[in-house]
């Protein structure tokens, strides 16, 4: 179903709070550690920055089509959605609570460049704690679904966290990777990665590419309602598997095979052609439904 422009509420443009409101059942959201009960980070104050009451992440619980859901939503507009001490601890606390209370899922609205440099060490350790907490929640049978579609994408340590989740739902606007193109360009030169070539950046790290490659389970329109229906649909068909040697062996083989096949490639166009897409140049122009149909028609 394609959406008319007037019905659309862009996920990309929305704040974390607006995304939560659009995602969950109306009026069902309750925030844990709301702004009125919180202080901005003293680490930022020490660096002469005012900070934010919620330290850039909104956590709480609500319902998605009546099912109990925990939510963590990063605010990409605040310090690049980056993880500091308080921010990280809120997420870890929520994931640990999910192990106890076993909601139907944790929805992790990732919009982050990774570690907050202003609190670098705290951020790195926090991301490591988040990594373990995601795996613990999943091992307890609670799906943890990453929703990626904001301006910061899911980069750095949060790119690793995203790939530890049960699945990733991504929009065309979303990006998922490890190092930012600017960093690669600075260190390795513009020939290696021209960070200003937006089309290239999206062909390498963007939602359509990640979806075609199978690194994201679902591609949705840049729209609050589309993320809501995507998450609902995904959870309806998902049972969280127990961690197992067999599944990691299978994943190992998939990763090994594709490294062997694509190691020399430098552009999504090459990968899509190898996947069997007849006209790779058309991929960036296809709407969401057409791209999903294309993927579903590809040889596996």
């Amino acid at each position: 179903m394609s959406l008319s422009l007037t019905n659309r509420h862009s996920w990309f443009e929305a704040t974390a709070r607006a995304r939560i409101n659009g995602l969950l059942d109306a009026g069902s959201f309750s925030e844990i550690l709301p702004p009125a009960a919180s202080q901005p980070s003293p680490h930022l104050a020490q660096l002469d920055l005012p900070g934010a009451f919620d330290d850039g992440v909104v956590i709480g619980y609500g319902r998605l089509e009546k099912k109990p859901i925990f939510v963590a939503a990063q605010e990409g507009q605040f310090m690049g959605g980056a993880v500091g001490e308080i921010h990280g601890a809120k997420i870890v606390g929520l994931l640990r609570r999910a192990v106890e209370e076993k909601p139907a899922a944790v929805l992790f609205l990732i919009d982050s460049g990774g570690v907050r440099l202003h609190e670098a060490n705290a951020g790195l350790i926090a991301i490591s704690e988040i990594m373990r907490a995601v795996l613990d929640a999943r091992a307890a049978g609670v799906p943890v679904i990453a929703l990626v579609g904001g301006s910061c994408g899911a980069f750095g340590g949060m790119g690793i966290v995203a790939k530890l989740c049960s699945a990733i739902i991504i929009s065309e606007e979303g990006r998922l990777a490890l190092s930012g193109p600017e960093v690669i360009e600075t260190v390795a030169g513009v020939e290696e990665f021209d960070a200003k070539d937006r089309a290239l950046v999206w062909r390498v790290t963007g939602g359509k590419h990640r979806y075609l490659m199978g690194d994201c389970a679902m591609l949705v329109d840049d729209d609050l309602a589309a993320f809501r229906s995507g998450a609902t649909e995904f959870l309806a068909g998902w049972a969280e598997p127990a961690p197992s040697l067999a599944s990691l062996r299978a994943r190992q083989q998939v990763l090994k095979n594709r490294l062997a096949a694509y190691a020399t490639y430098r552009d999504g166009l090459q990968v899509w052609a190898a996947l069997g897409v007849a006209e790779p140049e058309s991929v960036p122009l296809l709407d969401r439904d057409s791209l999903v149909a294309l993927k579903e028609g590809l040889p596996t």
Partner: protein
Amino acid sequence: METLEFRFDSKPGVRPDHPALCGVVGSGNLEILVKPGDQPGCCQVHIKTSARGFGTTWRAVIGDFAASHPAGGTAIAINDMGATPAVVSLRLAQALAEYQGGAR
């Protein structure tokens, strides 16, 4: 960073139970938290701002706001990253409206 405190007389308005938050602390932006204050005819404002030396401007903007809105009995906390006076005024009005609307 500069911390500023103001108190202005202001007409009291509706006094809901729940605080209201408006805005995001992005570059050129600010967040405003409105809570019940302890003085019914007074609007208390606490500001943390990344830009220094704009005390007079803040005083004027807050003063205008307090004079033209029923903000008495509120305690307002602001985290600012360089928003313009126009944006500040807009957000203050939005935040107060949301607070008094009891919007969830």
